[in-house]
């Protein structure tokens, strides 16, 4: 609480329901980190499921993993890592007042995110073309361990792709905020929080990639 805000003056009656404006960048960042903890635990629970089933079906997991396309997985890893770099550069550029460069870097980040999703959709599409999707006939004929591997593969990469989409929307919003000059270089809270989220999305993929593509 900041006692020097209009809050403690009599004309506070005109303020709707008590929200004197005071900027504390730490509050927003702390809220974001707590939110990221929940994301880590969300994926963490899935990693636990993965670990347990890997222990139960070691050979079948390895067999199923061989059918994933390592090249697309590796390519997507490079794409996401690069997008994290461009986003970090965008924040740095904006903090130094280089608006145009920042917008350019953000556009690059968006393009890389889109590329990631395109590669991903080709991968899923190839699996669907081989009649490999959650409730397909081919799926039901696979050994149980391979079924659960693909179940986790679709669930975890799907949830991750959902996060990429949400991150992309958030980046678009930040671009709009910069374009309309709604955020200033000394008030980077929203921008930095979107950056944190994007790095988390990146980080999750760094674990997904070896666990699904490289164990075979």
């Amino acid at each position, binding site marked *: 609480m900041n*006692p020097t805000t209009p809050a403690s003056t009599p004309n506070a009656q005109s303020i709707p329901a008590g929200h004197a404006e005071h900027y504390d960048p730490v509050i927003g960042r702390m809220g974001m980190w707590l939110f990221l903890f929940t994301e880590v635990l969300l994926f*963490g629970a899935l990693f636990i499921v993965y670990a347990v*089933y890997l222990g139960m079906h070691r050979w079948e997991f390895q067999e199923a993993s061989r059918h994933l396309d390592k090249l697309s997985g590796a390519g997507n890893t490079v794409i996401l890592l690069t997008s994290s770099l461009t986003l970090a550069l965008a924040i740095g550029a904006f903090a130094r007042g280089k608006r145009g460069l920042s917008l350019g870097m953000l556009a690059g980040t968006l393009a890389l995110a889109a590329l990631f999703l395109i590669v991903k959709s080709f991968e899923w599409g190839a699996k669907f073309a081989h009649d490999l999707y959650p409730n397909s006939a081919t799926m039901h004929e696979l050994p149980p361990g391979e079924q659960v591997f693909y179940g986790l593969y*679709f669930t975890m990469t799907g949830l991750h792709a959902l996060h990429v989409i949400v991150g992309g929307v958030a980046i678009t919003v930040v671009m709009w905020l910069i374009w309309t000059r709604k955020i200033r270089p000394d008030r980077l809270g929203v921008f930095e929080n979107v950056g944190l989220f994007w790095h988390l999305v990146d980080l999750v993929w760094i674990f997904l990639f070896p666990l699904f593509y490289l164990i075979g």
Partner: protein
Amino acid sequence: MTTAAIGLSPSLPNYLDARRGILSWLLTTDHKRIGIMYLMVMMVFFAFATTMALLFRLELLSPGEQFMGSDLYNRLLTLHGVAMIFLFVIPGIPAVFGNFFLPIMIGAEDVAFPRLNLFSWYCFVLGAILALGSVMLGGPDTGWTFYVPYSAKTSHNVLVPMGAAFILGWSSILTGLNFITTVHRMRAKKMGWFQMPLFVWSLYSTGWIQVLATPVIGITLALVLLERLLGVPIFDPARGGDPILYQHLFWIYSHPAVYVMILPAMGVVSEIIPTFSRKTIFGYKLIAFSSIAIAGIGSLVWAHHMFTSGMSDVARVVFSFLTFFVAVPSGVKVFNWLATMYKGSIHLGPPMLWALTFIFLFTIGGLTGLINASLSLDIHIHDTSFVVAHFHYTMFGGGGVIFFAALHYWWPKMFGRMYKLKPAYVAIGVFFVGFNLTYFPLFVAGMLGMPRRYADYLPEYTIYHRLSTIGSWVMVSALLIMFINLFHSLFKGARAEHNPWGGATLEWQTPTPPPVLNFDGEPDLSRGAYEYPTKVEA
């Protein structure tokens, strides 16, 4: 003490009068109004869940089918559990009293994220409507635990209530996130961590459990939904899955969740007992740290729900040990409360009597918890009505009773009206009798082998079920007396004083009801949260 602090000249309109109209409530970001809105919807859900329990308790009056089939019984039982747990006990004290009093107690104007706070309320209401609306769609019959494989296969509608639990999880996470940030960043400048009231400490620990445990249940329910909707193989053993894993994931959240239910209640007790004993709290730091300890150890005991599910002996021994261990910080609290009362100048007002009821009932609940934690005994009483009695003693005798205590303690501050004392005392007395009559026979029946959740029973258990059903009527009469008394005071009650109980925490410094921005001036922090005048004012 300034004139404003004793309320002689409230210079600002209070939060109830400041703005009028339904939209001024539905779009408010004032933490006090949000707390009141939680209270209002929650009372409806509580009445709903209580009614369902009354109905199936009536069915159990005599052996054999009375007036409802086992299918309807299962659905009522499930919804009673879902509504009571997800809509009343888990969110109850944090969402209502935490929202209202956390910022005031630390001298802040509001929580850290006021709009997020309102959003949590809408999540809560949406989730609640879905959960209760699922009754119209046939209603789930899985029990509130949604165990697979049954929940993935049953023909009853479980999609809607599971989706509801997912949304309610969001509400819970956002509230926890908000409170943690508020405690870290919004405290009055002179208030250090160890000047905070203990209720704030308990909300802080609770916030961490909500943030760290809830995502696990969220994703687990989502996995079951994926399995049901799209046939994604996750828990189906025929397709490589493991249903026991579901139970682990479920309890990784749901056991810590019982501490979400009980920790804030313990915080309220730590406020009420010193106030009504006119004596500073005994062992402030131990109580504060025991909240953190409960949150920490409580996250590592989940598998004691699964002693008969199939686990290695090592795992069972470890979880049994940790379960005994988590009783230590709870015991620390109970003894600290008793030591606080020792040689105090005890005033037995309604909040204090509710708090003492809590200590009595919760001690029974806690000690029977140790029986459940013992591996060999648990094999005998697992899934019997002994467990039902145990968790009603802890959850209802704990979280529920303290919800009522908090209502009586803070009611005058929240609404500016004082309820009548005599009906309040009567309600407590009748409740105490009714509660024990309802749940104690279930301990005995459980020891004798009565399984939980069954719609019917053998004639030899008749006496226990009959006592329990009669007890439920007594208990509901007490609740009716209590709520009518409180409701009546809203319109006919005398104007409340600013500090009717002589409390020392900051909410008693501000006018009644509090102004929009919580304080007329700057709150006076020179007096500690548990410093009472040595002379007793009559």
